[in-house]
Structure formats: C-alpha cells, structure tokens
C-alpha cells in the first residue's frame, strides 16, 4: 500500500495512457466506454489522493526510471499542480458517463473506440503536462493532447469542424514550436531542462537577452494554446463545430492547463513576482486581458449559434483569469486560480447541456430554441443556473472568483478595474439573457413542441456540475482556500 502511494504520480498519467491503448486494441464501442469510465474515475481518485498527500507532507518528487533529476525526468507535485490535476481529472470523470449516449448515436463501434481513445489521450497529455517537472516533457505531452484534440474536433457533425481542426492544428503547432524555441533558448543558456533546476540557475543570468527572448517566446506560445486575445482565432470554431462532448471536455480542461503553464513559467521558472514584474509583461497582459473581456463578450452577444457564443464567452473568461495573473499579487492570483476552477465547472456544464439540446433538437441556433424552456425544463433550468454563475451572481461560484479578482485590483488602488469587471459581467448578462428570453418567453415552434426532456444519462452529469457551481458559491473552504495557499506558493516562488 505504501509502495502504491509512492507510485501515484506515475499512475496518474499511465492509467489513461494504457486505457487509451486498450480502447484502440479491442475496438469495441461499449467496452471502450467502460474502460474510459473506469480509468477516468480511477485517475480522479489518484488526483484526490495526490492532493491529500501534498497537503499532508508537502511537495512530492518522483524520479521516472529511477534517474535523479536533472539527468532523468522528474515528476513533481505541489499544491498548484495537484489542484489543476484535480480539476482536469474531475471534469473528465463527470463527462464520461454523458458521452455514451451522444457518441453511440452517431458512430459505429470502431469509431466510438477511436473517439474514446482520443479522449483518453487528451486526458493523458493534459495530466502529463500538469504533473511533469521537465521542460521538454511539457512539449511532448502538450502535443499528445493537442493532436488528439484536433482529431476529436474533426469528428464533429458539421464539415466546418474539419476546417476548425485544421486552423487549430496550424495555430497550435506554431504555438508549440514557439514553446520549443523558448525552451531551447533557456536550455542553451543553462544546459538543463528540469524546471526547478532551471529556476535555480536563472537568477544569475536573469537580464541576459536570450532569457528575455525565451520569456517572450514561451508567453506567445502558451497564449496561442490558451487562446488569449488576439491569438484566440482558432477557438470559437473549434468549440462550435466539434462534438459537444469534445467542446465540454476541452473548454473545461485544455485552457486551464495552458493557464497553469503560464503560472508555472512566470512564477516558478522566472523567479516569481520579482523577475516577472520587472518586465513590461504584466502591463501588456493586463491590456490584452481587458480587451479580451470586452471584445469577446461583445462578439458573443451577436452570435446566433449558442455553442459559438459560449466559445467567445470562454475567450472573455480567459481574459478575467489573465487579468488576475497580471497583478501577480496573492489576492489576484487567488482570484485567477479560483476562477480557473469555477470556469472549468461552469463551461463544461453549459456545453453538456447544449449537447443535450443538440441531441434532441439537432440544432443550437438561437432562433430554433424558442419556447424550449417548456419542453426541456430541467435542461434549461440548469442552463439558467450556470448562466447566472457565469455572470457572477451572488450565491454562485462565479461570484466568489470575481470577488477576489476585484479585490486584487482594489488592493492596487485601481478601482476603475473593478468597474470594468462589473461592466464586462453585465455584457455576460446580455448574452445569457438573450438565450433565456428566447427559451422562456417565446411560443414553441412546431419542432420544439415535439421535444422530450433530455435523457437522464445526459442530465445527471450536468447537474453534478450545477450542484458544484452552487456549492462552491457558498462553501469556499475548498476552492478559494486551496487557491489562496497555492497563490502564496506562487508569489513567493516556492518550489
């Protein structure tokens, strides 16, 4: 038992990887689903145990292959990535029960297996990126998850899914190559690839030009993967035209891991709040974040496809999170990390509900939804609750994270940022309000009249997320307090 506990970090990533190969080996749809379900739940449990262990005994270091770092690859779990591991594996575990219904309706047995295989590989890649302590390993696992998500998005119903996947592939690969350039420059200056060895060696050479250029390349590369405005162009189509399950999964996890990378690079490698804030980067990020919050929200208001609307909303929410990062204070980082957690729950839930509508109605155009609130009451009620949380209404999770973000701005004496946060939230209210208006206050169309409520397999995973969104709005001892502890580590560059 003791031995198993020590092997948890490796198990976290190996579990979904082996499960993915098994899916591709047997190629039998239902079996693959069972494999995916069990491995997702198990890896969620592993993440829970890892978090408990980190809380109990501090940082866990795991040497893969028994080679000590920096010669071998190290897995290192601290509070920050244990938190992210929990988000990623948790969202994945909730979504899997939902997938069976929507995937088996569209694909034959082999295709289903391949879909689950890709799903698990995205999970493998994201968990691998989060847990690893080696710069090049980050790149490798990032590409596993990216390639698998390109394939998943291309499986969408609409032919636009193909071009969305192609665009994502081009932008994503440029992003990955930029990250490699950044890693290469750092390596050329220090000779090491281990993140923590690197962090120890950088302060001596911190103002040399290759290091600054590396910071720039890493930032641009991760921002491409993160879809930070104005590098977000791939995201709306990818989320809108991919399968609903893929949108829910990626919206809940992939961008969160990219944010984690940003935090890791800025605060661990580049010497914490001191070095990062000496560069003009925080100011640039702040401006981009504010632009994202407003531009993307305004574009979202004018979308007729609700999935696309939510995708633009994701770009805006990423703006909120990056805004928190740009202040680099304890409170603002608490806000950023809490919002990361809450947004994962809310967006995954919203996309799952939209998937249920798509499953019954075959469309997510806003005009097709008129009066749907009467025919699919549970689905739409859930949509309203999560929508309120997205706006940041008190009593929901979204309120907590925006509260901390606002507080972080106030601490810096920038009250006008608070005004901007509130007004961006009002924009959120407009686009969520549009959907509510159509769904509840218009007469049902002929198509909508014949609809039935979404199947329960699709509803309860979404309601699990809804319950979480409400619960974390009242009880902040888990999300916000953990985030605060992690933020303290980040600001003080403890590793």
């Amino acid at each position, binding site marked *: 038992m003791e031995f198993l506990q020590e092997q948890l970090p490796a198990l976290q990533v190996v579990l979904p990887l082996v499960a993915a190969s098994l899916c591709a080996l047997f190629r039998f749809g239902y079996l693959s689903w069972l494999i995916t379900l069990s491995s997702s739940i198990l890896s969620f449990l592993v993440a829970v145990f890892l978090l408990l262990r980190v809380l109990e005994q501090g940082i866990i270091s795991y040497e893969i292959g028994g080679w000590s770092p920096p010669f071998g690859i190290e897995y290192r779990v601290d509070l920050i990535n244990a938190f992210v591991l929990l988000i990623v594996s948790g969202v994945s575990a909730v979504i899997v029960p939902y997938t069976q219904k929507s995937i088996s309706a569209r694909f034959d047995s082999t295709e289903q297996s391949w879909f689950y295989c890709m799903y698990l590989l995205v999970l493998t890649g994201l968990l691998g990126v989060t847990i690893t302590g080696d710069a090049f390993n980050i790149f490798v696992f990032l590409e596993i998850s990216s390639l698998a998500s390109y394939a998943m998005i291309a499986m969408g119903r609409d032919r636009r899914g193909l071009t969305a996947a192609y665009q994502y592939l081009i932008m994503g*690969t440029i992003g990955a190559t930029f990250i*490699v*350039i950044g890693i290469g420059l750092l390596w*050329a200056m220090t000779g090491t690839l281990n993140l923590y060895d690197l962090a120890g060696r950088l302060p001596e050479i911190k103002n040399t030009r290759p290091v600054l250029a590396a910071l720039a390349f890493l930032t641009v590369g991760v921002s491409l993967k993160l879809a930070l405005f104005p590098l977000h162009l791939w995201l709306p189509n990818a989320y809108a035209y991919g399968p609903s399950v893929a949108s829910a999964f990626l919206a809940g996890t992939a961008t969160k891991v990219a944010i984690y990378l940003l935090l890791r690079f800025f605060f661990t490698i580049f010497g914490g709040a001191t070095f990062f804030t000496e560069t003009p980067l925080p100011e640039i990020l702040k401006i981009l974040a504010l632009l994202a919050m407003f531009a993307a929200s305004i574009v979202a208001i004018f979308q007729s496809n609700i999935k696309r609307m939510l995708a633009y909303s994701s770009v805006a929410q990423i703006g909120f999170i990056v805004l928190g990062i740009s202040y680099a204070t304890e409170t603002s980082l608490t806000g950023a990390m809490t919002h990361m957690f809450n947004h994962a729950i809310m967006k995954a839930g919203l996309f799952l509900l939209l998937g249920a509508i798509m499953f019954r109605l075959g469309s997510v155009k806003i005009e097709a939804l008129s009066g749907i609130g009467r025919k699919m009451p549970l689905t739409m009620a859930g949509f309203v609750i999560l929508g309120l949380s997205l706006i940041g209404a008190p009593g929901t999770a979204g309120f907590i994270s925006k509260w901390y973000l606002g507080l972080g701005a106030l601490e810096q004496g920038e009250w006008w940022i608070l005004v901007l946060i509130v007004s961006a939230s009002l924009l959120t209210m407009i686009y969520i309000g549009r959907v509510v208006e159509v769904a509840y206050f218009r007469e049902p169309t002929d198509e909508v009249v014949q609809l039935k409520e979404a199947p329960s397999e699709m509803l309860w995973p979404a309601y699990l997320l809804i319950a979480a969104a409400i619960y974390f709005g009242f009880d902040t001892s888990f999300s916000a307090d953990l985030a605060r502890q992690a933020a303290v580590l980040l600001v003080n560059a403890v590793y």
Partner: protein
Amino acid sequence: MSLILASINYWVTIILMIGGLYIVVAHGNMVKKLVGLSIFQTSVYLLFLSPGKILGGTAPIISEKFEVYSNPLPHVLILTAIVVGVATIALGMALVVRINEAYGTIEDDEVHEMEQD
C-alpha cells in the same frame, strides 16, 4: 562583421525559420502551409543542435579512439521533435484530404467564403 561570422549558424537558422513561418501565415493553400510548417519546425532543430556541437568533437558514440564528444542531449530532444513534427504533418494532411472532399478546394479563402453562406 565578426559578430555576424561568429554566429553564422544562428543567422541561417533565423532566416530559415522566418521563411517557414512566412509561408504558414501568408499563404492560403493548405498543402503549402503544411510544407511551411514543417520547414519552420525543422529549422528550430538547428537552434538546438548548434549549441551542442563541439569543434573537434565527434558523434556521441563511445569508442576508444575519441576523447571529445558532441553533446548527446539535443540529439535526443530533436529525435523526439522530428517524430512529433511528422505526426502533426500526417494529421494535417489527412485533414486537407477531408477538407478537399467536403469543399472541393484547399484554398483558405475559398473555404472561408463558402462558410459565410
């Protein structure tokens, strides 16, 4: 001038990289974009391999005849990167084939126009 000569390897790398990147960003043909992408990625390999070379050194295969070896670490990294690159290109080409079947063209602009209506 000596500045340029001392780091000629980096200059070449940068020119190649920019050339590749330009093809990706500026051109509308999807196949050509992929070729550009692969040029861009390949040139990054040089950025890794150059710092590892030691003049007078030899390939990192231990033998009694040699004393100085070039750095093996970048070779390992680049092997991995090449593999990642080819997997990406293969997937990209599969997408191009499917896009061609769905739209009848592989020009970015034309596809974009069709999506508008």
